[in-house]
């Protein structure tokens, strides 16, 4: 769990950094108000929307490939 959290924090920092550096419009030296506002919204989307979806997807994939299968006969 700790590793997953560390990975997610790293992912958020990496994603926002990439968004900030990929565009020359966002790295202009004059004014950065709109760029920071947009980065804030991107951060909110990543933190509150994308991370729960990724954790759900991770849980689904983990459940699909786990070897702990219990047949109906074993259960009874």
């Amino acid at each position: 769990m700790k590793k997953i959290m560390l990975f997610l924090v790293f992912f958020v920092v990496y994603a926002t950094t990439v968004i900030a550096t990929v565009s020359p419009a966002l790295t202009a030296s004059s004014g950065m108000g709109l760029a920071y506002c947009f980065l804030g919204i991107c951060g909110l989307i990543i933190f509150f929307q994308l991370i729960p979806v990724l954790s759900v997807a991770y849980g689904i994939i983990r459940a699909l490939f786990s070897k702990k299968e219990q047949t109906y006969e074993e259960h009874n």
Partner: protein
Amino acid sequence: MELFEHYLAKKNKHMKNIINFLLFVIVCFAAHFIMNVNGFFIIPEIARVILGCPPPVYLINIALVVYAFSAITIKLCSIAYHKEFVYDFNDLGYCSGFFFFYSLSGALAINFMPVAIIGLIVHLLNLIHYTLSTNYTTTELIID
């Protein structure tokens, strides 16, 4: 008594849900009204210097795709797992933000429909989730 309190809470939530949806429709109408106007040139020169350049359209498109994918997945998961409906204005804020940034970038006329459709889908999923969750809780209360 418990059933009556539950009815009042349900009515309150129902009103909030309708208000949320109406606000989204109003935001859509407002965005449609200023669709052909570039919002960046309405801002005064001094504010424009402070605010800087608007974000490029392709970055807003990427953010919109990520938002749509994650929001729809979250809503479908919460419907599938019978989670309790939690009321919030998040989706309205995100849609308004996208309209705002598209307007500043001068691309609202092209990208109005995708944002409106995604917002409508998310709000409809919200309504479905709310209706299903109130049905579950009412049935549980009546059984108890």
